[in-house]
């Protein structure tokens, strides 16, 4: 028990290097498992497996994918004892943490199956979690994140709606004193900005713009600048869709400024791209090329070859149009 508790202490330790603490925690859990055998102490064994899995999930050292594989295996071990019937709450927590690990893996491998499994696990876990409990709140929040990620691929509005419901459920249950309350509070306007932009594109622009305005207002008051930048980006996209070029341009510039401040390369890349597009549409071709070149450079740095070739095509089209315009001081490539 002492080794397991020592492991927990290292896992949650605030002082010292987080990477070192996690290594010590893993060592302590592995030592504990030598004593807590499955046969002799099944519940302690399962609890230690769960804790070991958490530590591998969060591990900083080592190969990230291998750590996640080890974490998944350990959660699966724990699940053999923490069944829904025997330990409903522990089962729910273990399933929820397993889901988080799968989400993390899907972020590395881009595998849609992991995200699908995670969503399934989280939805199941919620049926076992005690309503309004910390596990229930955390699971709802993670489910909201997972559904938001799935929407990025599926573009299914129902995913956004389900994510919004999950965030709302988490917010309704969370205590105002919760240490992470702002993160939870920001999740709702963040998803609403994505939904707002989506609704605008689907033709429900009035409702969509209202959601975007509301989410921007809320996020402008929060300390989460990244969430605010993302909401501004969604607003820019919505205005671009509405062919409201002036507002789209202003919002892209707002977005770009904030992403730059946050040193967020993917955000900067997409903002430059949006700004370049809008400037080109408005006929500000030379200005557009400057922005597109910046977008290309960042996408190349991020190894987004698909985006690089997309930008290249756009850049060439703008160059072609520009070349046809009389401009004695500049020469452009062949079209």
């Amino acid at each position, binding site marked *: 028990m002492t080794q397991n508790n020592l492991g927990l202490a290292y896992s949650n330790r605030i002082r010292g290097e987080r990477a070192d603490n996690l290594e010590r925690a893993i060592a302590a859990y592995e030592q504990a498992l030598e004593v807590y055998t499955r046969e002799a102490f099944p519940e302690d064994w399962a609890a230690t497996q769960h804790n070991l899995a958490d530590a591998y999930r969060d591990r900083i050292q080592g190969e990230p994918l291998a750590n996640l594989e080890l974490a998944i295996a350990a959660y699966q071990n724990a699940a053999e004892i923490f069944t829904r019937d025997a330990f409903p709450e522990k089962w729910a927590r273990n399933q929820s943490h397993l889901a988080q690990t799968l989400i993390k893996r899907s972020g590395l491998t881009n595998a849609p199956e992991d995200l699908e499994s995670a969503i399934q696990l989280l939805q199941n876990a919620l049926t076992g979690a005690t309503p309004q409990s910390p596990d229930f709140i955390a699971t709802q929040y993670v489910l909201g994140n997972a559904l938001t990620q799935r929407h990025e691929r599926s573009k299914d509005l129902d995913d956004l709606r389900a994510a919004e419901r999950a965030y709302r459920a988490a917010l309704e249950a969370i205590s105002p004193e919760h240490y992470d309350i702002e993160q939870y509070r920001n999740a709702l306007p963040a998803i609403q900005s994505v939904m707002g932009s989506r609704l605008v594109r689907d033709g429900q622009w009035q409702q969509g713009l209202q959601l975007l305005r509301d989410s921007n207002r809320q996020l*402008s008051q929060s300390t989460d600048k990244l969430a605010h930048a993302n909401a501004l980006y969604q*607003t820019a996209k919505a205005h671009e869709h509405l062919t409201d070029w002036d507002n789209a341009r*202003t919002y892209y510039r707002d977005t770009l400024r*904030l992403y*730059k401040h946050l040193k967020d390369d993917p955000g900067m890349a997409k903002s430059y791209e949006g700004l370049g597009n809008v400037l080109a549409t*408005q*006929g500000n071709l030379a200005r557009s090329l400057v922005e597109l070149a910046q977008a290309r450079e960042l996408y190349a740095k991020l190894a987004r070859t698909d985006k690089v070739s997309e930008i290249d095509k756009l850049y060439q089209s703008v160059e072609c149009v520009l070349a046809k315009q009389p401009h004695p001081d500049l020469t452009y490539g062949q079209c």
Partner: protein
Amino acid sequence: MSAIPFTESPTGFDDTTQLDRTFTGRENELSQVFNLFQSLERRRILIYGRIGIGKSAFLLEALATLRRNLPRKLFTYTALPAELDLATAALIALAQELPDDDWAQNTLHQMGIPTAKAIKERTTEASANVVFGAKMSEKSAPQGKLQYPTAALDTLIDRALKKYPEGVVIAIDDLDKQNPARVRQLMHDAQGILKGRAWFMLTGHPTGITADLLTTERGLFDLQIELKELDQKTTYQMLVNYLDSVRIKDHCTDPSDPRSVLPFSPETARHFCQVSQGKPRLFNRLGTIVLNRAAELQADKITPEVLQAGLKSAAPKLQERAALNFQEERVRSRLQERGSLSDETIEIEDLEQLGVRSFSELVPILEKLEEADLAHQILRSDAQEFAAIDLPFGEFIDTE
């Protein structure tokens, strides 16, 4: 002079006599409108330009002239009130122009709006024109809502066309004084009406909804007229006309005659016009302030010193009038300090010092400053930029 001739904005067709005497310039733009009216086929006209550029005056002047010359056409004018859709606003304006049409009067009655006859009996303002040209007043605000305003308007246009077979013209002013999202919805809902059988004349702002209309609805308007700042010569003539409109005797509208600008001297008149930047509303506001200041100083001539004193008092007066809150004042002060603020060049530190994170949060404040003549938007196709109105505090320069 019998009174201060300057006004904030034209109040409607009750004032057409004054407008006729003071409206100056825009000959080309008016010709374009009049040329379009040579045709019998109905048309849609959009008049756009920045706040305070004289869109309402232009619209009213065009309507007054057209009405005089085309008596077989019916002309209606309304300033779009808040909370009304375009169809209902147009319906009320049109119904009020048809005092002998029972259906129209019944419709007004159903909406709880005093009918033309009732207004005529109760107000001394009423004339044969009744509400033509008047900004929709409180007594015109509907108490009850029509269930199908679009269908009702269609019916009313039918009835009006029987009486005025050469056409019905509905002019809707102040479209952009509403929330842009609402205007967008209004325009969206009004597509059918605008493409219907009446002529429409709308006014708007180049960076608000009008910009969208220009880009997305190019086919909707047969004529789009942009009103820009008046040149100095026209502004000078406008000053002459304004001053003459309140002279009891010694009328003079010849700008080469120095008496035409009294109590200004030609020198101070030119300087006044220069400061007004060819913006009719700023011209009117500054004119009122300068003449009031002259009265306070008991000066019967606008000498350079009197003009300077008047202009010096303008900035605080405009600020006082705008009733800025703390945040708005902070933005005004930063704008004054920097000369201009744009979405392209503003830094995150500037924004944070102003208590925001995005330029888009500043835009409504900057627009309010523009409305108060404390800022003006520089029209650019590649950036949103506002500059401070530079009221002179320094030395007097004659720019002849």
